[in-house]
């Protein structure tokens, strides 16, 4: 008679301990960590070759299929692109002349020349398996000189920053990831006033809050990275304001930003090594 009761008590104690451990683990891991836990790093390292293999197989199949179905339109597109190329070559020549003149004028006014960004191209080999998180895995890591918090950009604009860096791969936390602590500063291109951008909130959009009550955001405003940003070079495009909400008294504002980067089809990104 006692044994079943004792057995149930043991199960209850085990369950209670299990929930306690899990809750503790969730609290511990809920904030962004400077150093990732070794078990996570090890597991991701083990998973990396599988992810890379599947990625390349899928890309090869998708590219082959696309080539076969698009052969006819590829010819037409090729001709159009050749015409565009010759026009752009002429424009580039003019721009180079303007750039040279700009440099001379800057030197005359004793401005410090803006430094060029040093970019390392990488491929996206995997995405976070959770639909709530927005992180990607790229195929380069510490062996290529990457460190945590290095900015990640695309041709369109800001993508995110490096979160966890392994020897061969790295995890990038995207601009739209909703976790606490994923935020950055920016400036409104129109007025150069400071705003703060927070990831997540709505699907594909970021929340933007002005730094001060006097800062007014308008729909259509382009938001760029600011000089005061800890991680990002200045004047990179973050996105465009699509909606502005005001409080009833009209003093407080918050806005929604559509990122410049298209995160749904991210295949290649650049890591900024030097600002």
């Amino acid at each position, binding site marked *: 008679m006692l044994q079943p009761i004792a057995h149930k008590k043991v199960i209850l104690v085990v369950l209670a301990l299990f929930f306690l451990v899990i*809750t503790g683990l969730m609290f511990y891991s809920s904030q962004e960590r400077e150093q990732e836990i070794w078990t996570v790093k090890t597991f991701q390292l083990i998973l990396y070759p*599988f992810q890379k293999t599947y990625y390349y197989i899928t890309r090869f199949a998708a590219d082959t299929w696309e080539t076969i179905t698009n052969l006819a339109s590829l010819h037409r597109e090729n001709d159009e692109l050749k015409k565009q190329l010759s026009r752009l070559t002429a424009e580039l020549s003019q721009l180079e002349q303007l750039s040279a003149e700009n440099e001379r004028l800057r030197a005359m006014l004793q401005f410090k020349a803006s430094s060029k960004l040093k970019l390392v191209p990488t491929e996206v080999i*995997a995405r976070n*398996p959770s639909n*709530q998180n927005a992180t990607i895995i790229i195929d380069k890591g510490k062996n290529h000189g990457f460190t945590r918090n290095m900015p990640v950009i695309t041709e369109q604009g800001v993508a995110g920053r490096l979160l*966890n860096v392994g020897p061969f791969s790295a*995890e990038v936390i995207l601009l739209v990831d909703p976790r606490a*602590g994923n935020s950055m500063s920016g400036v409104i291109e129109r007025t150069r006033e400071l705003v703060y951008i927070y990831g997540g*909130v709505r*699907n594909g959009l970021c929340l933007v809050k002005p730094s001060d009550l006097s800062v007014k955001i308008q729909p259509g405003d382009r938001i760029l990275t600011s000089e005061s940003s800890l991680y990002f070079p200045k004047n990179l495009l973050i996105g465009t304001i699509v909606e502005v909400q005001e409080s009833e008294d009209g003093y407080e504002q918050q806005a929604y930003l559509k990122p410049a980067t298209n995160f749904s089809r991210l295949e290649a990104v650049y890591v900024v090594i030097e600002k």
Partner: protein
Amino acid sequence: MWVWKFLGLIVLPLTLQTSVFPQVSYLGVVPNLVLLLTICYGLLQGIKPGIYLGLLGGLCLDLAAGGILGLNILLLGLLGFAAGYLERVVFKGNILVPLLAVLAGTLFYEFFAYAVQSSFGWRMEFWSFFLTKVLPLCLYHLILAGPVYLGVNKALTLLREKVKVGG
């Protein structure tokens, strides 16, 4: 034997989920194959196997995803247990059973995860989350549940026959 089960039921789906399905995502969502397999496996095998797969699959999902560790362990463990409990009380021959189980499991998983993440400061508007993530995900899972369930059933039957023949 358990190594092949681990590879087939967790590592392979996890890799597909991270590397293949994002390239064919539907409305921006990717199916949670580990969750699908946990529910289907629990429905076919019972409580203990369901719990074990849920806990192990949840652990692997947490390690692969980063973020809040322990969340998937808890959720998939519970879902594995629930699916395993259903194994005793429902008729598994009807294909509606795994479909409904997967739908209920998906809703439970997403809402619970949303509640936990929101309490830790993650920013997601509920209606945007529900309309753009939960609904498309439920649809995606309903489409995949049938083939996954039948596939797991077939694989387990073949394994049992192989074990019988092997003695």
